[in-house]
């Protein structure tokens, strides 16, 4: 594994410099110098070099044995209700399985899960259903043990899970136990049919850079995907599928962690991540009382209230409402950004929304670069008009 510049061939032309997405190339004394730390050998510089001066050596990983077949989707549930993200993943999983000419399976661990047949209606050929009180809560240890066991037994080539708070916490543990790769928060999944590899595309660097990642030498190939990144298909209740009930062998789980109690938080009625409509306010609101305007518009639209970071830092609204890189990532059908300038960190959390409305008095605010509709104006005049007209 190495990257080097052949100084005999390098002319110091500098064409590789802007090609590096990570800004790791300097021209020193008329030659390109690449900082190795931070380089992931993406070959962008090599492609940009007209003199073949950049030499990259990659160890070719032994392709994984091909006894692994099938695409699996972890169908997360909470209190017996299946989460939407599992159905979304089945729609994408169906495409992948069809391309690979293999089966699509859903794995559902829960305690008395309702409407499991939804999983076959949404495309699963098989459902591995493990019903046990151990899966009643979101206590991770039994999930880690059982999913690892099922994967080891049935050897799927791909396993997908939702990048929910739960998925992001327990799924990496499964990947580490299986000593395989895991790609977080994929926004694109595709198949390299020739090599039978999963192409996993994800944003990094706050959504400013996209990277396509493969897992060539280990199986299964594992990815998480945030809710609402993929669309669920139309359910077909007549679709044939097998539901296989599996006994949970409790004694196979050695859990040193113990759950003592659970306290439900009832304050947040609409979950931002699940909301179809989100109305967010930013620094432009000026003071905490003005958040009432945002709330009122949210009520009029039947949506949830979000915020950019400054109001949270100022203590105008709790952190649970923060949308952005260090807050929540949302993908609603409709997103209102009110008095939000659109810092990169905020955009990272909301730019995949279907329809974005920006209301800001600064016509040059970056939020207008990602908005569908923009209104340049005084939010204190525009928003009350919107509320009034919606109420009518």
């Amino acid at each position, binding site marked *: 594994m190495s990257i080097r510049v052949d100084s005999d061939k390098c002319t110091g032309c500098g064409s590789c410099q802007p090609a590096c997405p990570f800004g790791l190339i300097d021209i020193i004394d008329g030659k390109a110098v690449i900082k190795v730390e931070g380089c992931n050998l993406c070959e962008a510089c090599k492609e940009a070099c007209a003199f073949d001066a950049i030499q990259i050596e990659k160890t070719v990983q032994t392709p994984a044995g091909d006894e692994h077949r099938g695409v699996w989707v972890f169908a997360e549930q909470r209190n017996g209700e299946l989460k939407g993200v599992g159905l979304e993943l089945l729609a994408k999983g169906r495409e992948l399985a069809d391309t690979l000419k293999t089966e699509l399976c859903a794995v559902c661990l829960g305690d008395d899960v309702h409407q499991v047949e939804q999983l076959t209606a949404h495309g699963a050929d098989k459902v591995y259903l493990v019903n046990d009180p151990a899966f009643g809560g979101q206590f991770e240890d039994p999930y880690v043990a059982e999913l690892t066991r099922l994967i080891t037994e049935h050897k799927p080539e791909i396993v997908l899970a939702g990048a929910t708070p739960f998925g992001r*916490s*327990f799924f990496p543990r499964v*990947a580490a136990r299986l000593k395989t790769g895991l790609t977080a928060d994929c926004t694109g999944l595709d198949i390299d049919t020739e090599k039978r590899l999963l192409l996993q595309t994800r944003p990094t660097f706050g959504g400013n850079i996209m990277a396509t990642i493969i897992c060539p030498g280990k199986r299964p190939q594992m990815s998480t995907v945030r809710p609402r990144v993929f669309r669920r298909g139309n359910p077909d209740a007549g679709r044939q599928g097998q539901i296989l009930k599996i006994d949970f062998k409790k004694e196979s789980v050695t859990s040193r962690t113990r759950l003592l109690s659970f306290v439900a938080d009832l304050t947040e009625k609409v979950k931002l991540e699940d909301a179809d409509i989100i109305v967010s306010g930013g620094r432009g609101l000026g003071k905490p009382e003005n958040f009432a305007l945002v709330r009122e518009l949210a009520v009029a639209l039947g949506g949830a209230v979000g915020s950019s970071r400054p109001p949270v830092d100022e203590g105008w609204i709790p952190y649970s409402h923060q949308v952005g890189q260090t807050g929540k990532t949302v993908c609603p059908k409709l997103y209102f950004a009110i008095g939000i300038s659109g810092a990169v*960190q905020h955009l990272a959390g909301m730019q995949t929304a279907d329809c974005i409305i920006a209301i800001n008095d600064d016509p040059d605010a970056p939020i207008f670069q990602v908005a569908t509709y923009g209104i340049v104006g005084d939010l204190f005049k525009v928003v009350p008009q919107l509320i009034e007209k919606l109420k009518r």
Partner: protein
Amino acid sequence: MNILVCLKQVPGTTEVKIDPVKNTLIRQGIKNVTNPFDTYALEEGVRLRERFGGKVTAISMGPPQAIDMLREAITVGADDAILLSDVAFAGADTLATSNTLAKAVQKLGNIDLVICGRQTIDGDTGQVGPEMAEVLGLPFISYVSKVEDAAGGKLRVQRLVEDGYETVEAPLPAVITVVKEINVPRVPSLRGTMKAKSAQIPTWKAQDIGIAAEAAGLAGSATQVVKVFFPQRIKRAEMIQGDPTAQAEALIGKLREAKVI
């Protein structure tokens, strides 16, 4: 109690800007900072030492300049720090990073609690904490919002879950990741600043922690980046003109027409 806090140096994103013409990152003048989520991990480590005694060690895997960040960690209360830096570590995915950190934990020995931030703001995966716990075979608790007790070889914490919080208990040693709600990080103390100036921060290489070159860095990574590109921001807002009344009316009309509302 021996506490190890994992830190990562990341580009300070408040300064990340996009070149609107070339649609590339403008990296000039970007300062590196401690990953914001890791500052809560460090603060919690220091608070636990204050409550239960012991020692806080800050550790980071990264380029040589990450030593500055580790020095800063000492200004806010870490007792000592270790840098894992080697060309062999470069290009590591979360699995290789976890393997490398785990080796360092094993070399240190006698660690009761490993604390990580919930995720970094550059890679954004949040995978290293849970993966390291599995590599070490230790109990793992994520999204910790409060440490209730850590005496008597046991840890009792509150952790945030989607619709509330759980109280969870685990024997030590254990690995936890913490959320922003857990504390408010302190500012550097004068004493800490003095201490940081003279602190000896060792740099450990692959051979120091006994990790084979093929298990670390790019070579030890299960995943490989095959392509990197900039997302196209071609969407340009359709601007709605007029006075506020007309703007509001036009917008609602468009949303209704598109059946968004």
